[in-house]
């Protein structure tokens, strides 16, 4: 069974540029999460989707971050414009439902210069 797929794996951009990350969850998983992981830290939740509905986006910086999950399957996380402090690994995870174990993708390592 394929795991959570993310692309790109690495992205280097200059500050003020836009960037987008893509995630395809495990087939049949209704719940999708985006996390931010800074170096030496545990992941922190940015947004959680139940199917196509964003049910928890309280930690998403809405002035520059946006996300969507059209059709309730794959998802895109966007940053516009990127700032130096956005350099981190962006992880996508999915689970059958909100109470089930979360399975993580390989992440996208973002470097903002």
């Amino acid at each position, binding site marked *: 069974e394929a795991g959570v797929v993310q692309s790109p794996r690495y992205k280097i951009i200059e500050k003020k540029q836009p960037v987008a990350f893509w995630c395809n969850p495990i087939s049949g998983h209704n719940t999708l999460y985006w996390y931010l992981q800074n170096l*030496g830290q*545990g*992941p*922190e939740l940015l947004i*959680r989707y139940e199917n196509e509905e964003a049910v928890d986006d309280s930690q998403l910086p809405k002035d520059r971050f946006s996300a969507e999950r059209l059709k309730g399957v794959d998802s895109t996380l966007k940053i516009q414009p990127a700032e130096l402090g956005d350099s981190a690994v962006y992880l996508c995870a999915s689970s059958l439902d909100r109470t089930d174990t*979360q399975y993580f993708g390989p992440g996208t390592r973002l470097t903002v210069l």
Partner: protein
Amino acid sequence: ELKVEQNPLFLSMQEGKNYTIYCNYSTTSDRLYWYRQDPGKSLESLFVLLSNGAVKQEGRLMASLDTKARLSTLHITAAVHDLSATYFCAVDMVDSSYKLIFGSGTRLLVRP
């Protein structure tokens, strides 16, 4: 606000030795996860502990949960180099948010 603390944050141990990683959390929860992360890789689920007194074992790793003490332990028996990785515990919020709060991780290095 739920806080999760792990200790130690870094652990260097010799092959063959035993050691325990601790995970303390600040508010009530009855669902705790342990994940493993290799450098540059994603998080791999190791254990899910769902009730007080739960104990799970896989190979040289054993995890336990004491909800009354708000403490989980990850015990390593006769460590081998392949266990070198960062280990995270994560605790589920008991409210309707179903949010996982992660500890900072314990970076384990097993030396020959």
